[in-house]
């Protein structure tokens, strides 16, 4: 439970807010490269309560500009993509990717107005199918050498989806290992072989146990949380019998991402990016440690529930997320189908636009949430006093920040830490692109 004031500090992210100023010090995912495949590579972007337009010019350069034309504030997301930039349809003012005004065609011949106009523009970088932007003050940090950024394009796949609630409650699901035993419980296990590209369907490493069975039958996990260079590492142990322990290692990469295993071969790196105080997009990069990913299949699977252009899920509050009481009785714990992403979406959205944390009661299994909020408070204070917050990295530190290790397997040695470290090292050594990770 926290005070209303503290809840506001964590959740309000508009310009000038304390948490907003912290989050602006990091590269933020703003779009998928896939969104720019069509005939018109222009997309509106709302990030941290600010409106932008993202476009790709004829030279293939991406530009992120303030969305309102600096002339009379018409919407540049409806602009004409031509002559080296984006042109406002109202009076023809033309801007390049750097925000430079190239033409003001209604002004008299010889007018210098254009030279004095500069539209707000922000640095943009593309990594693993995701377009990242930096809208904060000063120089942007360097990109860390996370697996999802180091793996080649063939071994990553990116997707996104809109959740209509505050960013923090969405991220907090990703640091709550206990919920998976309940929220994602299936009464029958699917054939893991028939579950390509889906979360919590595979078999844990070194076992023939479907993860769905482990989660269902061993529902009181021991959770340990440790500070790490990237944020937090969570180790979740589920003792299966006297000789076997299910071990799951997951991470928070500060400030807004988690890194978890999807299957023995694939990890998930997922950001929760505030659109504004009441909405967030999840951006996920799937990273394969074995063969190339079947991106076409993975994209089609997800577009079926998160259609373009806004990636707003078909199941949402307006249709009670497709809740089916008979399914809840017979097949799933929640009664909203077999897509675990929808389960998490319901959990977050049902908490309300901003979870009222003055009314919550946290348990022992919420220890990572508590640790994360402490960390967030400390880093908000650092940013406010002009110090460099965690993960705002220079090039040297960024190159050294690798991994992080995420793992799901069954240990029989009794030394669970050695087990997951060695298992990860073996997987990495066998990966076509892998390298060493943490010491």
């Amino acid at each position: 439970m926290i005070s209303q004031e503290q809840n506001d500090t964590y959740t309000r992210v508009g310009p000038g807010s304390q948490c907003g100023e912290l989050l602006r010090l990091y590269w933020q995912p703003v779009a998928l490269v896939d969104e720019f495949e069509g005939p018109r590579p222009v997309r509106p972007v709302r990030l941290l309560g600010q409106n932008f337009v993202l476009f790709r010019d004829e030279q293939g350069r991406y530009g992120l500009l303030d969305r309102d034309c600096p002339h009379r504030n018409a919407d540049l997301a409806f602009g004409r993509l031509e002559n080296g930039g984006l042109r406002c349809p109202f009076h023809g003012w033309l801007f390049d990717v750097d925000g430079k005004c190239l033409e003001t065609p209604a002004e008299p011949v010889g007018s210098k107005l254009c030279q004095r106009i500069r539209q707000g523009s922000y640095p943009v970088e593309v990594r693993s199918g995701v377009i990242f932007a930096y809208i904060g003050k000063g120089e942007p940090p360097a990109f860390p050498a996370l697996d999802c950024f180091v793996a080649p394009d063939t071994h990553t796949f990116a997707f996104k989806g809109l959740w209509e609630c505050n960013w923090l409650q969405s991220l907090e699901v990703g640091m709550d290992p206990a919920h998976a035993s309940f929220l994602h419980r299936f009464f029958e296990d699917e054939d893991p072989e028939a579950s390509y590209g889906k979360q919590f369907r595979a078999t844990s490493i070194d076992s023939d146990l479907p993860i769905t069975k482990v989660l269902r039958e061993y529902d009181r996990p021991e959770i340990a949380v440790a500070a790490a260079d990237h944020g937090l590492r969570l180790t979740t142990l589920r003792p299966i019998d006297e000789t076997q322990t299910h071990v799951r290692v997951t991470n928070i990469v500060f400030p807004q991402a988690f890194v978890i295993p999807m299957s023995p071969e694939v990890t998930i790196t997922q950001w929760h990016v505030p659109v504004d105080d009441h909405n967030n997009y999840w951006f996920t990069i799937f990273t394969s440690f074995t063969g190339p990913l079947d991106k076409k299949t993975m994209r089609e699977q997800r577009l079926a529930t998160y259609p373009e252009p806004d990636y707003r899920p078909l199941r949402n509050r307006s249709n009670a997320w497709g809740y089916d009481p008979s399914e809840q009785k017979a097949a799933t714990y929640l009664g909203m189908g077999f897509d675990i992403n929808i389960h998490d979406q319901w959990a977050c959205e049902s908490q309300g636009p901003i979870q009222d944390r003055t009314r919550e009661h946290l348990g022992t299994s919420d220890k990572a949430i508590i640790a994360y909020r402490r960390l967030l408070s400390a880093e908000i204070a650092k940013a406010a006093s002009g110090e460099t917050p965690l993960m705002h990295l220079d090039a040297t530190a960024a190159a050294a920040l690798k991994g992080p290790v995420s793992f799901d397997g069954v240990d029989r040695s009794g030394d669970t830490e050695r087990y997951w470290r060695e298992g990860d090292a073996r997987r990495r050594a066998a990966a076509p692109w892998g390298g060493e990770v943490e010491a």
Partner: protein
Amino acid sequence: MTDVTFILHDGTRRIVDVADGISVMQAAVMENIKGIDGECGGCLSCATCHVYVESLEAGELPAKDPDEDALLEGVAAELRPESRLACQIVMSPALVGLVVRVPERQV
């Protein structure tokens, strides 16, 4: 933050505390100082933020762009040696004690 004193056309004085990096025109518009318009938003294409600087010498103010001089030639009120466009006076602690007088008219 630095105080700027505006002397309005009727003689009233208003003091506004202005953040560094904000122009005297922006501060005046945001604070509803009557008599300073700033139609072009500070891109030197109008001359509707004309003020007379009362307190500081010309050398203590940000330097004048030739385009500012050209626009000052066309101001509606009397042009005086202490005439400036307020959009070109960007506040910093160096301008402590700045007093500007609003002219009779801008257009």
